[in-house]
């Protein structure tokens, strides 16, 4: 009797304690970014890391100081940005303002910004590079304001070129030029490769090579058949595969940046991301436009970053205020070491057209107008992309090296 009562009591007390802990924790300051002192709190999510992130925090602090009615809090999710944003959107708790590039995937959760932009007057919109608007829209609506961009270029290791006595590549060069240089540069004994490209390229990026040769994955109706496996497309893939077979090019496991940093790779293509990290790795390098195809041109895909507003946000005016700040000339200038500015006035005032490296990216941008990546044309891009990636792997993986025509015909089905 006593025993039972005792047990019950002790257990009840324990339970009570647990509940108390629970409520004690629960009763504290609310976790939601509460609006304090009449200030509206805006959540802003970024994917950037380290130095760039520090800079962003400084910019935000600056904004918070000068705005008496808005408080912005920065959320940084790094490489898992998409997982977090997806979870937030699914739970109807997305940040008010967020970085964005993959508009087709997220379009339904983003606020169309056309009317906001109109209110700012015509010159506001015109100051951005036109091409970038295409990359920050979906279904004919503008869903984000451009913050930064990069086109793709060829990075080359000057020391290796010097050692092999090969002249540096020049803008306007062709793939034949690249191959010839790569042949001279590669050195089996020293483990030096003339050219490196990803053995598992991101299909979004790789489409630029098809564009350069006058082809594309899909037409405006969304057909793969006759486009992905057109002779022009097959020609591109065959050319890349041949570079492998002939032994002066290698495929890389990632983007190729790691291999380039080893100092044993003479050339590879990438966006502007690599400038800072190659410098830190002590590589003496230069950049040059992508090579032209024989009867084609040099075209780059644009990897853009924009800033968007959540459709669910309850503080849209404040969010817009912050977006405007984030895309202002001042902010563009502040980010200049990390992002290529997207405002024409900034490019002019900072004389980027004369900058040895940056000029190349702007030139590539000019040459790449009017191309629309397949991801903006179809709804199921993520699945097509997965299939394409497998197809490319089959063509480039040393254990398969399959015939491009067979693979592409198959993938176009």
């Amino acid at each position, binding site marked *: 009797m006593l025993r*039972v009562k005792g*047990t019950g009591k002790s257990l009840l007390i324990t*339970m009570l304690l647990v509940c108390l802990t629970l409520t004690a924790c629960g009763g504290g300051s609310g976790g939601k970014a509460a609006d304090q002192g009449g200030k509206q709190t805006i959540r802003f999510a970024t994917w950037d890391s380290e130095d760039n992130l520090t800079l962003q925090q400084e910019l935000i602090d600056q904004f918070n100081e000068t705005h008496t009615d808005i408080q912005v809090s920065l959320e940084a999710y790094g490489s898992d940005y998409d*997982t977090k944003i997806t979870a937030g959107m699914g739970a109807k708790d997305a940040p008010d303002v967020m970085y964005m590039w993959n508009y087709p995937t997220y379009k339904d959760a983003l606020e169309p910004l056309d009317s906001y932009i109109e209110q700012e007057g015509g010159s506001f919109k015109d100051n951005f590079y036109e091409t970038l608007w295409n990359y920050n829209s979906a279904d004919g609506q503008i869903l984000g304001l451009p913050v930064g961009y990069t086109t793709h270029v060829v990075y080359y290791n000057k020391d290796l070129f010097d050692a092999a006595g090969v002249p540096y590549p020049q803008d306007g060069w062709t793939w034949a030029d690249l191959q010839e240089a790569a042949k001279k540069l590669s050195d089996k004994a020293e483990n030096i490769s003339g050219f490196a490209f990803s053995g598992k390229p991101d299909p979004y990026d790789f489409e630029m090579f098809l564009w350069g040769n006058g082809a594309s994955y899909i037409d405006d109706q969304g057909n793969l058949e006759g486009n992905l496996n057109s002779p022009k497309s097959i020609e591109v893939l065959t050319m890349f595969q041949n570079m492998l077979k002939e032994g002066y090019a290698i495929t890389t496991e990632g983007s190729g940046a790691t291999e380039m940093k080893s100092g044993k790779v003479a050339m590879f293509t990438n966006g502007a991301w690599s400038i800072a990290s190659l410098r830190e790795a002590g590589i003496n390098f230069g950049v040059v436009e992508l090579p032209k195809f024989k009867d084609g041109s040099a075209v780059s895909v644009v990897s853009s970053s924009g800033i968007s507003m959540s459709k669910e946000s309850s503080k849209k005016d404040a969010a817009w205020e912050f977006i405007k700040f984030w895309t202002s000339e001042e902010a563009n200038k502040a980010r200049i070491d990390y992002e290529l500015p997207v405002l024409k006035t900034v490019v002019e005032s900072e004389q980027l057209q004369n900058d040895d490296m940056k000029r190349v990216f702007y030139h590539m941008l000019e040459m790449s107008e009017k191309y629309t990546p397949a991801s903006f044309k179809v709804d199921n891009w993520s699945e097509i992309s997965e299939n394409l990636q497998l197809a490319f792997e089959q063509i480039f993986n040393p254990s398969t090296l399959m015939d491009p025509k067979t693979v592409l015909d198959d993938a176009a089905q």
Partner: protein
Amino acid sequence: MEQAAKRFKRSRRLGKWTPYLFISPWIVGILLFTVGPLIFSLIMSFFNWPVTSKPKFIGLDNYSKMFTDDPQFYKSLWITLKFAVFYVPLSLGISLILALLITQHVKGVKIFRTIFYLPAVVSGVAVSIIWGWIFNTKYGILNYALSLLGIEGPKWLVDPNSAIISIVIASAWGVGTMMLIFYTNIKGISPDLYESAAIDGAGPFRQFRSITLPLITPTLFFNLITSTISALQQLTLVLLLTNGGPLKSTYFYGLFVYNNAFKHHKLGYASANAWFMFIIILLLTALIFRSSSVWVFYENEVKNKPARGGKGK
């Protein structure tokens, strides 16, 4: 008299409730944190839910698509099962060997104990980066070391055949926790048992077979179940190290579900995938559980015989 009987009954009734009181935190917890999301995801498996917009009811379409119209589903399932069949016994074996090694009474064993445990402490992000580097075919350290010995190393993460081995090698690096569980169990075994066995002339192998092994079956059982679960749900390493490649040879089921949910934004479909795996694991666990009565011994059952005679409690 009647009252006393009532009291007695009440106490018996409360007595019956005692075990439930002990497990009540778990019951409350499961109601608070588990049941809701679980049911929600089950319901979602009957919906088309692209995350960014409203879910639409589509009945059994997700399930029928999974079984009849998605070759990747079967491929991923097959790869994962293969991995589990290979990896579970391997990791159990290694961690058991390690646990036995670190219970040996030899000099410096403390240092080895810490060394074996170290990798388990390293965060997943760093683990994937470091192994990605080690395995890099052309500029990685492993093939570099092999080349110094005059051997041309395999194309680790590039060749589909060696990629899965690379995953196994990298996964097995973190067996420290399993080792520690075995170790705790082995340390709990009374030294008297070994002493009397040694007097009987039993060598280390016979001691292991007749004393250690039977007495650690409870934790062996535990490690078997948990490692089966984690092998079948393996995600982090394949996501960060190979991302399913090369040629989708490491496109594990966990990655299949993850990509459907977060890359393709098909949350309904991903829920159906996940529920299917949930059921498989559940059945498998039930099977292992059933079998346990044959091969798992709990110490009191085994020890009772000598203890009764010896200690006379």
